[in-house]
């Protein structure tokens, strides 16, 4: 690993000034960053340790449930408010990584993690995300884990997070601080599609840091489910995952939220499918129809065509679990 300077920040302002300088990165849990640094995928000159900042709280505000950027994944997953109000988030967190990693990883770090595309990790291979302009090794390569939605000719990598899929489904917002003050982004607008600039994973500007996420109150707690399909039962990234949340009143769906993981460069929210479910009964047929609708615009590559079948099957199954049919 390349040597770097280590500095510790004692205020948000300190972090913002520090990361405005090129070559500086924030470190919190380090579970992804240290790995990337060991492999030479990234080589910052300076790390700013933010783990001592007061950004760990989980509490109710006027806008819903507030979760600090430094709250640990394991802590959020077990938090009583999260489990009671947004069990979907707890399920997604528990589906991610391992207990050890969840004890280290933070909410903000989870959002900032990079793709696990093997071509991104292998510095001997071309990768437009790691080294813009070098090409994409995955497009003509072994692309079994790769995206079927929102790809570009530059990149077909997927975002690896489970937590983010749940937060996208739950209409969360992201509170960001930067040189110009604070701003708020819809969670679904935080990550971006690769387009011409796959080196950019999200819409954070230079000098900006994540302070927290907020989840508005909803009626989904009773009928939500996170279903993750992977090569082994635990401790593996998703082939396809689905966050499903339903508001069912008197046997009719009044509201629905659906997002997929493992299929795109960002958590893939299914707004149209959600609308199509409103007013319908929670039946297997309706869920199968919704799942088919979700696949509009999907495009497979040589080794990931199985996702064209796996994805709708996973959506239907997640909806069945969420509605209590299973």
């Amino acid at each position, binding site marked *: 690993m390349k040597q770097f*300077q280590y500095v*510790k920040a004692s205020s948000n302002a300190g972090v913002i000034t520090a990361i405005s300088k090129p070559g500086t990165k924030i470190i919190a849990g380090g579970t992804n960053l240290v790995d990337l640094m*060991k492999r030479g995928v990234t080589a910052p000159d300076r790390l700013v340790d933010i783990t001592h900042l007061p950004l760990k709280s989980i509490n109710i505000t006027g806008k819903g449930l507030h979760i600090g950027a430094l709250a640990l994944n394991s802590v959020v997953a077990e938090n009583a408010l999260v489990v009671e109000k947004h069990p979907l988030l707890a399920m997604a967190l528990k589906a991610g990584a391992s207990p050890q990693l969840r004890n280290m990883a933070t909410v903000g770090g989870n959002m900032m993690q990079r793709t696990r595309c093997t071509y991104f990790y292998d510095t001997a291979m071309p990768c437009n995300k790691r080294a813009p302009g070098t090409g994409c090794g995955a497009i003509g390569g072994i692309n079994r884990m790769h995206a079927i939605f929102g790809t570009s000719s530059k990149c077909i990598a997927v975002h690896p997070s489970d937590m983010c899929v749940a937060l996208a489904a739950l209409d969360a917002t992201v509170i960001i601080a930067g040189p110009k003050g604070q701003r708020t982004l819809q969670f679904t607008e935080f990550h971006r599609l690769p387009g011409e600039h796959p080196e950019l994973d999200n819409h954070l500007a230079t000098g900006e840091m994540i302070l927290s996420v907020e989840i508005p109150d909803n009626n989904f707690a009773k009928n939500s489910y996170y279903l993750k399909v992977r090569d082994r039962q635990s401790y593996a990234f998703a082939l396809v995952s689905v966050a499903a949340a339903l508001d069912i009143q008197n046997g009719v769906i009044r509201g629905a939220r659906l997002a997929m993981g493992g299929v795109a460069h960002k958590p893939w929210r299914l707004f149209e499918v959600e609308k199509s479910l409103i007013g319908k009964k929670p039946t297997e047929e309706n869920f199968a129809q919704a799942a088919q609708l979700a696949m509009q615009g999907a495009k497979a590559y040589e080794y990931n065509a199985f996702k064209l079948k796996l994805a709708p099957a996973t959506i239907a199954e997640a909806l069945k679990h969420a509605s209590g049919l299973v």
Partner: protein
Amino acid sequence: MENEKFGMDARQQTDLKDPSRRSFIKQSSLLTAVALTPATALKAAEDHLDEQIAGVLEKLPLRMEVNGEMHNLSVEPRATLLDILREEMDLTGTKKGCDHGQCGACTVHVDGQRVNSCLTLGIMVNGKKVTTIEGLAKGDVLHPMQEAFLKHDGFQCGYCTPGQIMSAVACINEGHANSEGEIREYMSGNICRCGAYPNIVNAIMDVKNGGMEA
């Protein structure tokens, strides 16, 4: 001063304009790294020229409690907790498996919580308490989990075992050992290539049912 603007922690800031800092670098270089430090680089640091050179030169003080004993070390920021334990402190019970957070062989407890020491920068453990496999037994009396792994033959080659045991102790302390299925899920961060999983699960069930205290 630049670092005041950054709001950096005074102890760990790397402001070369600060004479005490400068003398620390010089001193620590002289004391611990004199053979490795090119004279030109030392001169550059003394003249507070290039902060990147200073970054390369600098070792930072790390104070941590390991297995009940306080240690004062001087470490490079890039040194992982795993490498510090094994290479600086001769605590080789903690194993380096994949070195990338994928196998769990390096699992230790930091302030009572299990973590992958291979992905933990040592400097970030400053002021914390670390427990390794060497810290579980009380003298010649093995920890109940160690006894259980022996009793249930919870290993073959043994390489993953220290990590498995540290993780198993945490698994019970966290309250995640209430069924075989739950144990399997909450031990999934520890890979055993020999496939001793059934015996590992039995060992954990046994300790859990025997009422191990945290």
